[in-house]
């Protein structure tokens, strides 16, 4: 069953076609990577899927609902309810502690619950660092907090924009490992990246070029990648 479907989606800025008649679909529980060089339309697509922009032409079905014509207020509601976002620059509220940053997401979604937020931090191995400010956390730790923040409201879809772009290899592996765990739990993941290694971790890679889908690659080795000995393994709580 497809969770996300882009039907003939174009985004046109004046003469420039950032996206040109793109058709993709992502199934529920699928882990998809979107690759492509700069200017290929990755960011535009990300904005549209993330309910932060609307296509000029075409339909975007998220969970069966066409979001291409919704008001920005409605899009905010959809984004809040269905999508968990992870960014390259981490983006934490710098005057709030790790656990408070997770709670901000709960606050906008429904009700802040510190216990639940601490539990989510536990999932990413940062329970002990919950009271630290972002400035006291390493980049990898910050990104793990962001993963915790993205999953706290149990979104249908986790949308990650270059999640490992600012991380060293060790932290990259930790984050990918977390993604793998989320995938196992049935969370749909869309990861925008230009790093082939990150793309390889996904089940399927969609390659964009000049605003069009150039090709799709099915990762036949999915799930067989050997994990390095340096990667810590976190206990996965029984949610989902």
């Amino acid at each position, binding site marked *: 069953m497809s969770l996300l479907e882009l039907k003939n989606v174009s985004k046109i800025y004046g003469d420039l076609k950032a996206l040109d008649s793109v058709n993709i679909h992502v199934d529920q529980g699928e882990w998809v990577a979107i690759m492509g060089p700069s200017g290929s339309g990755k*960011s535009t697509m*990300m*904005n549209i899927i*993330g309910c*932060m*922009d609307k296509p000029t032409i075409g339909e975007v079905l998220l969970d069966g609902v066409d979001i291409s014509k919704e008001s920005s*207020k409605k899009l*905010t*509601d959809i*984004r*809040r*309810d269905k999508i968990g*976002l992870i*960014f*390259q*620059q981490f*983006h*934490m*509220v*710098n*005057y*709030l502690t790790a656990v*408070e940053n997770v*709670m*901000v*997401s*709960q*606050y*906008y*979604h429904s*009700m*802040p*619950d*510190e216990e639940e937020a601490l539990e989510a931090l536990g999932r990413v191995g940062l329970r002990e660092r919950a009271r630290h*400010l972002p400035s006291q956390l390493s980049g990898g730790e910050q990104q793990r907090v962001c993963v915790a*923040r993205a999953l706290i409201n149990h979104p249908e879809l986790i949308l990650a*924009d*270059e999640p490992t*772009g600012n991380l060293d290899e060790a932290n990259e592996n930790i984050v990918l490992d977390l993604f793998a765990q989320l995938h196992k739990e049935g969370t749909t993941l869309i990861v925008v990246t230009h790093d082939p290694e990150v793309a390889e971790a996904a089940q399927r890679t969609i390659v964009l070029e000049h605003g069009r889908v150039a090709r799709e690659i099915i990762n036949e080795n999915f799930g067989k990648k050997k994990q390095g000995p340096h990667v810590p393994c976190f206990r996965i709580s029984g949610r989902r």
Partner: protein
Amino acid sequence: MTKRKMFLRMITASLLRRRSRMLIALLSIGIGATILSGLVTIYYDVPRQMGAQFRSYGANMILLPKDGTVLTPDTLQKTLALLPEEELVGATPYRYVRLDMTRRQQSFTSAGTDFSQVVKTSPYFSVEGEYPQHAREILVGKEIADTIGVKAGSSMQLTYKPTVAVSENAADDWVPLATVRGSAEGWNTSLVAVTATLDSEARIASITIDASSQTEEYGGRTQTDEAFQNQFIGKKLPLTLGEDVDALSGATVTSTAIVNALNHARSVSQAAVATERTGYYTVTGVLVTGGEEESYVFMSLEDMEALTGESRLDVAELSVSANAAQLEEYVQALTDADTGVTPRLVKRVTRSETAVLGKLQALVFLVTAVVLLLTMICVSTTMMAVVSERRREIGLRKALGASDNSIRAEFLGEGMFLGALGGVMGSVLGFVFAQVVSINVFGSSITFQPLLLPVTVIVSMAIAAVSCLLPIKRAVAIDPALVLKGE
């Protein structure tokens, strides 16, 4: 944890963990609130302060006896009781009489008064020496002191001569020592009036008869008959009809009345001389005012009463700490109460007070308005900087699902929190500020107005809220997608 708690937690975290930036906003609100509460305190206190200042320029209300009545100390007390006690700075009674300096041919106006009130209604009086404190002590105006050569410590003998029957006659070229007037019943019990001037040896120098009430061709002739009138010249009172003077033929009754009138006048005059009183006084100080008071001798009302045998007042000068409108009301109230006095305002004083106060308050108001405007600009600028500093964070919050209203609430919340904090700070500092100004400028302290605390806090919060409007508009306009773009 409730949403409200999280909201407060986010706001306090934002304020506490981003201290330096918020301190500037807090400081500007705090200073604005300080000036606001300080100036408002002064604004309301200025009339009181200035009122007290103005009171040092003298009385602003006078009480006069109503036509045909006598102002007594009792009447005065009754009238004063109608005025609010706390606003009555002082009320000085005055009784003016002419006194003679017994051993010299000098006489001057003497004022009986209450020295404890004089210092209140005429604080500008300057005394070389001291104000009288005991009975039979007097204050002498500088002009008199210079003329007769007295100073603090000198003694003076003063005489009071009632003016009932003996008076100086200034109308006549020839200045006699005294004029006697009298009247007696003549024909048909109608009154005949006689006026005679006496020379230095108390002999009659001239005589004027008013017998218009008598039959014209009989008694009336006494008015014009020179032979009859000349009999009186050079004679000493009392007179006996038939011995000292002869009656005018055909006008015996009138002639008798004339003699009786003169004799009566003499006895009254003697009575007057008999009521002449003399007192010995010690000069405690010389009064210097630069005004007409310098030609007066001041003594206590009690001494004045003892000297004249009368307990009456001519005027009372009041110093009332109130503005022109209130004074008008008091005048009206006193007039309505009809206690036997006529209240009058010293317009010259009240008008200039009103004018100065109005200008001062307008100035304070203007300064307050400007300060508030500056505060608003300052807070607005700071919040604007905060918004652009936090663009990314705002974008993130929106990406995480914050609605426009959440963003508004958060920034408004921070602004109002700063406003409240600055307001409390400003109320306290404002009082200190007003106190310092008051002590340094007016030389008196002010009382804390509890109502000003909530007012200042609310106004500060309102100003903070208004200042946040534009920055919030900017914040709401931030595109959440900006967080997806790389650095």
